[in-house]
């Protein structure tokens, strides 16, 4: 089949697509045992789609790995398992069993401890357990200030430590992929994408995403100015709280008790893109774990968070 020369993708998206593919191929050529961190969200959907393109006609030369805190939305887990099946990719699901045994959860332990144990520690555990030397992540530089200074190939010393003062300079497309035994690399192949471009790309490429991104009537409670969806019976309700049906969607997905919803009418990707273009708050506002303190992302990253 010979494709027509007229590309449907706009030029800026074609450029981003080619850049990400180049980075992914580079990592696969340079590392012995890469893995793709799959968080089920929109960025992961795009990352997986781009990986399929990068290695076509070969299958994905690495597995996907989901760090499951056991508090993800049910629809996310369903979507994750369906996606792995549909795409025919290997999926590893890792849970920090030690954290479960200690009874860590986002409600009683607080978001900071829950994130530390069930995400950061779990990720480090899993990387060590499987001996992965490179991990793809879908983080973007436009998400947050400390991410803006992150490298594409982000070096981690033994113990997965990130030192923002001692990063390797990154020039042109010449990446330094050399590491020693025990050291690892995080590979942020989508560093230069923005949230709007992610949605534009999903629209043009018709990439499936978790239905939670689309507005629908869902049961929520109002807490500290945030709409929290009651996804299962584990969310303890105060006496004054009665879940109400509201038409909501999510801009960003994580553990359900920590993800704030927005009221929205957007039921299609075109609606979401249109809504994005007039949005007045950032996507991270819905993330309760980032607001603990201003520099909290940098702090979490130093400790090994993605």
């Amino acid at each position, binding site marked *: 089949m010979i494709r027509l020369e007229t590309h*449907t993708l706009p030029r800026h998206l074609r450029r981003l697509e080619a850049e990400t593919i180049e980075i992914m191929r580079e990592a696969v050529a340079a590392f012995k045992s890469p893995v793709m961190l799959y968080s089920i969200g929109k960025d992961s959907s795009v990352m997986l789609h781009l990986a399929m*393109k990068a290695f076509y006609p070969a299958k994905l030369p690495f597995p996907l790995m989901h760090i499951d805190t056991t508090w993800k939305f049910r629809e996310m887990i369903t979507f994750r398992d369906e996606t792995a099946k549909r795409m025919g990719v290997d999926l590893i699901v890792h849970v920090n069993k030690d954290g479960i045994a200690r009874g860590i959860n986002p409600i009683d332990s607080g978001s900071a401890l829950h994130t530390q144990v069930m995400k950061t520690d779990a990720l480090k555990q899993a990387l060590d357990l499987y001996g992965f030397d490179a991990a793809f992540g879908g983080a973007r530089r436009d998400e947050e200030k400390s991410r803006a200074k992150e490298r594409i190939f982000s070096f981690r010393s033994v113990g997965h430590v990130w030192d923002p003062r001692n990063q390797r300079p990154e020039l042109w497309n*010449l990446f330094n992929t050399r590491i*020693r035994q025990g050291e690892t690399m995080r590979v942020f192949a989508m560093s230069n994408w923005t949230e709007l471009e992610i949605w534009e790309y999903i629209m043009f490429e018709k990439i499936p995403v978790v239905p939670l991104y689309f507005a629908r009537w869902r049961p929520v409670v109002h807490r500290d100015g945030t709409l929290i969806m009651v996804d299962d019976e584990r969310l303890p309700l105060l006496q004054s709280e009665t879940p109400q049906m509201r038409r909501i969607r999510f801009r960003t997905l994580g553990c359900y008790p920590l993800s704030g919803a927005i009221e929205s009418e957007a039921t299609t990707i075109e609606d979401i893109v249109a809504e994005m273009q007039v949005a007045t708050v950032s996507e991270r506002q819905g993330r309760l774990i980032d607001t603990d303190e201003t520099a909290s992302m940098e702090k979490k990253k130093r400790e090994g968070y993605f």
Partner: protein
Amino acid sequence: MDMEASPCVGEADSKDQLRFITCGSVDDGKSTLIGRLLHDSKMIYQDQLRALARDSAKHGTTGGDIDFALLVDGLEAERQQGITIDVAHRFFTTSHRSFVVADTPGHEQYTRNMATGASNAQLAIILIDARKGVLAQTKRHSFICSLLGIRHVMLAVNKIDLVDYRKDIFDGIVNDYVSFASELGFASITPLPISARYGDNITKRSRNTDWYQGQSLLDHLETIHIESETTDLPFRFPVQWVNRPSLDFRGYAGTIASGSISVGDEIIVAVSGLSSRVKRIVTYDGDLAVAGAGEAVTITLEDEIDVSRGDVLASPTHRPEIAHQFAAHLIWMDQEPMVPGRSYAFRIGTQSITSGSISCIKYKVDVNTRKQVAATTLGLNEIGFCNLATVLPATFDPYRINRRTGSLIVIDLSTNRTVGAGMIEFSRRRTTNIVQQPQSIGKRERSALMHQKPCVIWFTGLSGSGKSTIANIVDQKLFAMSHHSMLLDGDNLRQGLNRDLEFTEEDRVENIRRAGEAARLMLEAGLIVICSFISPYKADRNMVRSLVGNREFVEVFVDTPIEECIRRDPKGLYSKAKSGQIKNFTGIDAPYEAPSTPELHLKASGERPEHLADRVLNCLAERGFITLR
């Protein structure tokens, strides 16, 4: 998709991307400018503005006003210091273009970050404080932009409000800059008066400067025509990854660095010179008939020829340069100064060259005056014009012609840090003109006559570890077995061939290089060559290994604890070193980097030399170099 139903689609269709950097001296207002651009192009959300107002009250330098610089000064540490210390990437978009901004620091010791930001930029905004005019750092940054191949400059004379919007001051600065920059080869220089803090001439023309007739900064960014850098150049395809999912498919995955390619076109593999034709251009979205610069594709060829990662597929009529020696501008980026002669790894395109070196520094460039200064080494943030050498040939184009195939990075082999960045100028014809003289009798014939297999046995270890004693016994035993061998000893060579060398790091590198070359000649003569050198640096031993060839190189690590060596001190050198009579003595005030995977690791303490020599012979026998009876 229904184009009518979604108006943003048609709009986005013509959209392009522009990558630019902002540079200038400390306090020229770079971060404020970027914050202002993000704010005025509505890229800052309400929650971010609220956080900004909070931070402005805490860290801000603008009194009660919002300090836009705090939006972009990301890391906690630099917020406290009030300076940007690294490259930060910012994104904003208008209906015409999407922009990626590299915010690079103006602080003197962070030249390397500026070069990093400039390496992927098509345009530079150079900020000047209207009160201060053109400074040494303005010149430095302009020079680096020019060196890194940026063709378009916007000269933003900032804080024009603080000089009462005066035209004469603006004109004076522009004249100064243009006369200085005329030698830098920019295709365009666009001056404009701005106030990043108050927004004059940022997104629209300001009434405060009615004498200024040009576009606003954002209008200019949206409309400037940036010629495609690589489309019109000859075809270059650095092979990144060989895609081989089954026996029926062998494709070469990579991104087209320059030019374009069609199905049926003839290509050559740069180093081997082998040629073939393009059979298919494969993508996930279907095969292409034609593909151009910047596209990530997978190419299959008509013929089964040897192609692997690092090879460059190229146009047969316009071939790239292939050379062992070439000249390049290098920017040094590490605290550890460059050591000419030492082995470094180079990355050129997808080529990983692990046995390269900087053979000499022709001169260093004073970045403020652009004067050439003699130099024996380069320190952090220094720029030099250097000759580089590689054991295996490298494929490239001059950087000023092709930024994608003419750039390189330098990596320290022991720390794995990126220590330098280079722009290749030309291959050194002088070496290209020395054609290897073919010899009709080779190593194989010469060694066959002696009934032996030649190799190089390389003993490394501290002074007093016993390596020369063991080497000597090995030599005697080989002689007794009627083998033709030769012993090269560090101390002995320093009395002749290496008489002119000292014990500095540079001279130690040269000492080992000469020993390695001598060993290689003797290997060619068919001999078993026994070398005994402290050779403290891993990089240098690896250089000899690649010179000799991995198969015929046997590294023997004589591992004796330093305490034991000091106790023995056969030549009285340790006591001299300790009393300061000898400087740079390995193990005392100079490092020893132990081999991690030697062919043979001799734990020498408490063992008889005779016994250790037998273990060396056993190792040679296991590797098939000799036969033991």
